């Protein structure tokens, strides 16, 4: 009787172990799959949207500075003050202005980030049409 019980217990213990192993492997695979999916989702959905939003911020800020006539002053302090008064605090930006007359101006933050930097360029004109300039801008998250 004792012998029979020990045998039965051993048999049940083996099955239990295999079942446990099966469950552990299954749970592990499920976790790996979910992690992989969320990783893909993060990489493929969030980043391009975030990058697009960074670009749109740079583009809108530049357009606003042009529209307000701030860039046309070609004055470093005026433009820097104008820029940081409207740029959201999460962002930083660098602007490189080149004019037909040969004058150039660079201002804004230092590009120390290793993360995504969006860039673009817009054209503006000095109010009396005496000069034409391009403003190349670079924008990133702080």
């Amino acid at each position: 009787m004792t012998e029979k019980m020990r045998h039965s217990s051993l048999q049940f213990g083996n099955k239990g172990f295999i079942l446990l192993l099966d469950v552990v492997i299954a749970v592990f695979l499920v976790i790996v799959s979910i992690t992989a999916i969320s990783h893909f989702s993060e990489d493929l959905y969030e980043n391009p949207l975030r990058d697009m939003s960074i670009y749109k911020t740079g583009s809108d800020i530049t357009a606003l500075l042009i529209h307000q006539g701030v860039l046309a002053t070609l004055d470093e302090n005026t433009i820097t003050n104008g820029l940081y008064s409207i740029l959201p605090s999460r962002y930083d930006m660098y602007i490189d202005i080149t004019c037909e007359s040969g004058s150039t101006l660079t201002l804004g933050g230092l590009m120390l980030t290793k993360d995504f930097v969006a860039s673009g360029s817009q054209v503006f004109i000095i109010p009396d049409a005496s000069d034409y300039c391009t403003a190349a801008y670079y924008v990133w998250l702080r």
Partner: protein
Amino acid sequence: MKKKAILFTLSIFFILIIVLNSALLNTDTAESSRLLLQDMFIFDKTHDLFSSIEESMRTLIEIKSGINVTVHPNNNTITFVDEIPNPNRPQLLSALSDFETFIESSYPSVDIDTTEFAHNGTITVYPDTINYTHVGGLGSNIIALNASSPINNTFNRTSFLITLPDTNFSSILPAAPIGDGDFEIEVIIQSKDVAIETHLYRIDLDTDHRITVVLDDAPVHKGLQIYNNGSQKISIENLDESDTFTSALTVTLTNSSMMDREIGLAAETIIVRNTNVNHKKKGYIRLQ
């Protein structure tokens, strides 16, 4: 017990299959979204550059040509203010040429062509394609409003506010308002911002008419003439280029509102290319 184990394994197997399928589907969809966003990113960049060039050219043209276009959406009118003859051709040509050279050298992907405007000063109302043009080139003594179809399909009234130079106004011929047609021509003669004569003519555009503004210190041929050649063209001509007149031509739209229309330079004038996705934005310069 065996049955339960098999069922459990099968359940886990199916769950995994579902999870893997959704992962693959998700990856595929995400990749498409990423590519779509990448394209949108490029389209946005192209559009932003195009818009800023257009805005700059609009300012440049307004300043250098001396032609001012104003839209009054409330009463469905467009006003073109200009000088006859327009004296700004040399400075406009030089400014446009400098601007084009600068932009095309700064952005090799951009082509600007303002030949049509630089030579004729032609402004177009879209989609009707009614042209406000300087016949024979910017600086000529004739300004015309012409179209490929009868003008009164779009406009039923034109008003000419003419500011005289120092020379005194003598008379307007015909002196009495004429006709019972369905197209109105209003002529307001003013000097030093004071309206001195207002005449209203109701003409039939199918018949040719001439309205002459005569100046007193000259023979009859000195002054201005407003005339239509059929239903597709109304002109205003400076009969003697020794004087310069300011003309404010206001046209009143017939049926639809200004919301449906755009005013721009004739012909396609800005092209911005992006070779990465073979995208090209091409269009005319909108003034309004």
